[in-house]
């Protein structure tokens, strides 16, 4: 083979290297720019209406006086209750699947496949399920509790899968070390497995909760209201949520409502940002303790 053809092939390879590097860079720039345009648009429309009274006022049919307080509190109530229900159940399920269940049994295999599949079920389906089971069958009615139960079902698969992954990542040598000291299964779980899996469990759970925070579809099914002018003060109250209120406002013809809808979106994004930062901080803190 001649020297020139070798050199040509090298040049070709270097060119392809560069070409793909820029191609992938373009891919990430595309998604980032779409996000920036979206955020920029919302900020431009909404910042003007965003002030303290917007957060502390009741919704109103006059956009200049309308606020989001019931929706903000409703979201906090529902998400808080969802966390209380879904995290213990999800982590408990993950512990059972990883540490207790016989992995050769058909029960374990069916459970595993189904949990994976449930994570892909559209959220509206959970809404229908919640309506049938919680609202009607169990007669909980269109309340905060029914909403939280429905959202819990929706995010349980995600919490279970991420908790299982976190528990799996605990080295088996450490578990064996604990068992070899005569420490029982439960105390091994609380002594080394959960502390080591905690960062992963927390991250997965909080990200799942922030997904739940943005859901509107299943909650329409179980009776969240678009427009309320009272504040919730118990889990058996009726409620509205930020996504519901934003949806209600965007469906109105007046331009002023589009602006306060954008302001509502900003509040939601701030809320999501706070939860995600909390996830990162918690992960850092627990990881430092472990290492």
């Amino acid at each position, binding site marked *: 083979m001649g020297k020139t053809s070798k050199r040509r092939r090298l040049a070709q390879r270097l060119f392809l290297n560069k070409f793909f590097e820029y191609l992938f860079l373009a891919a990430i720039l595309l998604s980032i720019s779409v996000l920036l345009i979206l955020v920029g648009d919302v900020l431009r429309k909404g910042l003007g209406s965003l002030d303290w009274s917007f957060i502390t006022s009741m919704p109103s049919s006059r956009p200049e006086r309308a606020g989001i307080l019931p929706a903000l509190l409703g979201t906090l109530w529902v998400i808080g209750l969802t966390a209380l229900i879904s995290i213990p159940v999800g982590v408990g399920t993950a512990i059972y699947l990883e540490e207790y269940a*016989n*992995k050769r049994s058909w029960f374990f295999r069916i459970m595993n496949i189904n949990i994976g599949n449930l994570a892909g079920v559209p959220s509206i389906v959970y809404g229908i399920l919640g309506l049938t089971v919680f609202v009607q069958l169990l007669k909980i009615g269109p309340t905060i509790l029914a909403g939280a139960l429905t959202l819990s079902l929706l995010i349980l698969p995600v919490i279970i899968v991420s908790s299982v992954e976190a528990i799996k990542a605990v080295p088996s040598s*450490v578990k*064996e*070390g604990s068992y*070899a*000291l*005569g420490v029982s299964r439960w105390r091994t779980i609380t*002594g*080394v497995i959960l502390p080591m899996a905690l960062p992963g469990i927390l991250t997965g759970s909080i990200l799942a909760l922030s997904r739940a925070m943005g859901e509107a579809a299943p909650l329409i099914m179980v009776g969240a209201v678009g427009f309320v002018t009272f504040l919730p003060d118990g889990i058996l109250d009726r409620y509205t949520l930020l996504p519901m209120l934003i949806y209600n406002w965007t469906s109105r013809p007046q331009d002023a409502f589009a602006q306060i809808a954008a302001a509502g979106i900003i509040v939601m994004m701030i809320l999501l940002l706070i939860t995600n930062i909390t996830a990162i901080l918690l992960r850092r803190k627990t990881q430092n303790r472990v290492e």
Partner: protein
Amino acid sequence: MTNKIKVEHLDFYYGNFQALKDINMDIHQNKITALIGPSGCGKSTFIKTMNRMFDLIDGTKATGSISFDGTELLDKNLDVVQLRKRIGMVFQKPNPFPKSIEENVLYGVKRHGDVPKSEWDELVKTSLKKASLWTEVEHKLNQSAFSLSGGQQQRLCIARALATKPEVLLMDEPTSALDPIATAKIEELLEELKKEYTVIIVTHSMQQAARISDYTGFFLNGELIEFGLTKTVFSNPTDKRTEDYITGRFG
């Protein structure tokens, strides 16, 4: 001479695969028994039967008898928590818990709840001293166990096992992940430990077995080919396969 553990007709299965075939062995008290043989010969499996670690693996089965001071270890109703307190184990790779040095030593007793809090400090000290680690860590007991070197971590794992006051120590190739200096330290330590404990050590190194052990067992394909005084096994083996192995003709 007392037999601490008596193994009779032990068979062991992983599913359908028979990993140990009709093992008979007497483990003598306050002696070091070394188990040698090529990888996959069953020596590690054998020591895991003695603290029932195989319970953790689905589909395993052991038949025959392992008698520990008269207690049948293969009894289904045996309290494995009590058993593992009396028969401690040190693993191939140091596996300290992601906790402080002190917490590592106290891990077992804190969860068994059988040592009063007032004795914890003393227990940490004596356990670390017995593992000849005390002078190296006495001023940093609250530091993470991961701040120690590999050899120190392994001695911490020994201290951790000693803290539950066992009678027997099982060691599964405890120096295979360590450098020669750290290995020498552990071997020295074993000499000390056998005064108080009965030690069973799996090793991939025949030199190590010859250096430190009183008795040696040679495993091949799940069978115990030869067992006896280390001196005899190494200088005058009765089985041709043992001779071939220790002279380096295979393995």
